[in-house]
């Protein structure tokens, strides 16, 4: 029975030399780049490298929910914030170290996502986007205004750097390696999720969720999972951020950060993990290179997103046109799917 060979489900039909690119990337991240950083030995460069890696993880986690499952998520930064605050509070109040806060940050962010997803997951398209926007704002306001617990706008000082089971990793190079290792592992995990039959089931929801339903895909459950998993990885990124900078405040997790992450995914191309990674690098490194422009740097994000939607409808490597996805979602909000197909029809429930 050799007629049906097993193939990689999503990318092409041949897996020849599939090890080459990952090997080169690993070499770059774990050998060439650290060598370069050590050569320059400037804290600023380490900072940029770590920041870029953290945003690679944020972008990759958003790729899972927006690029693959097609849910327009406008509150991602809030889950990043939940992760960061979990790490900061566990450290400052209970004196726990990174080894413990890393997984807990992910789990708490995932738990919060799961709870808010319960009522919102049945919302259709644009209503879901608005709900995530509201959730993001609510979590942000909690961080800002619950002064007793989160210290509000003063932020929290995270006194402990990176460590692994008590072994300190807070030196510059060690910290870089820690961030790089966690981000790489997480991105590999996200890659496995999105390039699998499970990922294909998520994609089918993005393409046509009713039809996916008819194919036996439990759409509501899978949307929940994608949303929760992406929040888990955002939480992990939050823990990295908290221990890296040593200080967090609500301003790091505002709506504009969610839009920045969304822009990364859109510029890289919806549905493409390499695209999400490249988008993150582009939108972190480009503004840093343009520091001379001062506040005009912030316009860059909007400009890059605008131009990429205009000139590269599918982003750099994407599967779906961002504009078409949004337009379809807007359309679905008031599209008549047949007279009286269900209760509450036309107000965004399914």
């Amino acid at each position, binding site marked *: 029975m050799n007629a049906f060979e097993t193939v990689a489900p999503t990318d092409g039909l041949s897996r020849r030399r599939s090890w080459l690119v990952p090997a080169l990337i690993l070499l770059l991240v774990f050998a060439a780049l650290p060598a370069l950083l050590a050569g320059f030995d400037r804290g600023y460069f380490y900072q940029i490298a770590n920041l870029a890696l953290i945003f690679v993880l944020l972008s990759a986690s958003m790729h899972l929910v927006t690029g693959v499952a097609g849910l327009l998520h406008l509150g991602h930064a809030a889950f990043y914030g939940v992760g960061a605050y979990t790490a900061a509070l566990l450290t400052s109040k209970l004196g726990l170290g990174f080894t413990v806060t890393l997984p807990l940050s992910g789990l708490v962010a995932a738990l919060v996502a799961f709870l808010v997803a319960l009522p919102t997951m049945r919302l259709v398209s644009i209503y879901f986007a608005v709900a995530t926007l509201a959730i993001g704002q609510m979590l942000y306001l909690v961080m800002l205004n619950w002064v007793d617990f989160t210290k509000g706008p003063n932020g929290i000082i995270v006194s402990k750097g990176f460590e692994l089971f008590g072994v300190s990793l807070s030196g510059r190079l060690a910290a870089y390696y820690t961030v790089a290792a966690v981000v790489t592992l997480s991105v590999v995990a996200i890659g496995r999720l999105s390039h*699998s039959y499970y990922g294909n*089931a998520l994609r089918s929801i993005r393409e046509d969720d009713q*039809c996916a339903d*008819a194919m*036996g895909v439990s759409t509501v459950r899978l949307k929940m999972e994608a949303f929760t998993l992406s929040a888990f990885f955002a939480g992990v990124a939050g823990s990295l951020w908290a221990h890296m900078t040593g200080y967090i405040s609500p301003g790091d997790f505002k709506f504009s950060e969610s839009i920045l992450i969304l822009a990364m995914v859109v510029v890289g191309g919806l549905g493409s993990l390499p695209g999400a990674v490249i988008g993150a690098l582009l939108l972190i490194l480009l503004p840093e290179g343009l520091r001379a422009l001062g506040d005009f740097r912030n316009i860059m994000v909007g400009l890059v997103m605008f131009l990429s939607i205009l000139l590269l409808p599918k982003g750099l490597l994407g599967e779906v046109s961002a504009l078409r996805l949004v337009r379809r979602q807007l359309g679905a909000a008031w599209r008549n799917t047949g007279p009286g197909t269900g209760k509450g029809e036309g107000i965004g429930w399914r």
Partner: protein
Amino acid sequence: MTHLLEIRNVSRRFGGVQAVGDVTAHVDEGELVGLIGPNGAGKTTLFNLISGFTPLSGGSVAFAGRTISGLKPNQVARLGISRTFQNLRVFPNMSVFDNVSVGAVGALPQGAFGALFGGFHKGGRNRSAEISRRSWEALEAVGLTHVAAELAANLPYGQRKYLEIARALAMRPRFLILDEPAAGLNDTETRDLAAFIKRLHGQGLTIMLVEHDMTLVMGICQRILVLASGRKIADGAPDAIRSDAAVLEAYLGVDE
């Protein structure tokens, strides 16, 4: 012996419109049944009622001895009822193979855990291999293996029709519902499709199809149900249907 599919006094109202009213019908294992009727007769609604897309206003549907009315479409699908859509619905931004794999993974779910760690244990690997095998078999059945890596959106219309059927077949259904499979096909393509459906039926699959093309329905179906204004007006062999007074009246109208 109980019937594979039993539709008992099923009705569905949309506001003031009775789309399907008190329809009782059945399909036996191994049958190839046609469902015809003038436009607006409620054929697609009946399909939607069976597959769980539209909730029933009254009556019940049972499949293989189990009541399925009230289940969600994906639950109905996993029990072995697979369908295609009237207005062709493939997943345009996915490859042909990936499209079909959704059918296979729908019937044989791979969870997030399986995606992450399935490669590390035998059960997970077997599951992936089985999904892949079913997908290839379905593609082979419709003759689309040569375009497996192509994006579904790039396929010509006729091939997309077969892709949709392949995706339904990848679920390994017990009962296949085809909603106007010949719509938009020319005569040659329709003849090929008829031969294909007959071949599927010959392999033991129970099929029900809605079709406007009478030569197709009369040519291949063993039994035909006729709906008009949401009611069943006839149920019988093609020859009997052809000369049935009520059917002629529904299609041609009567002089007053």
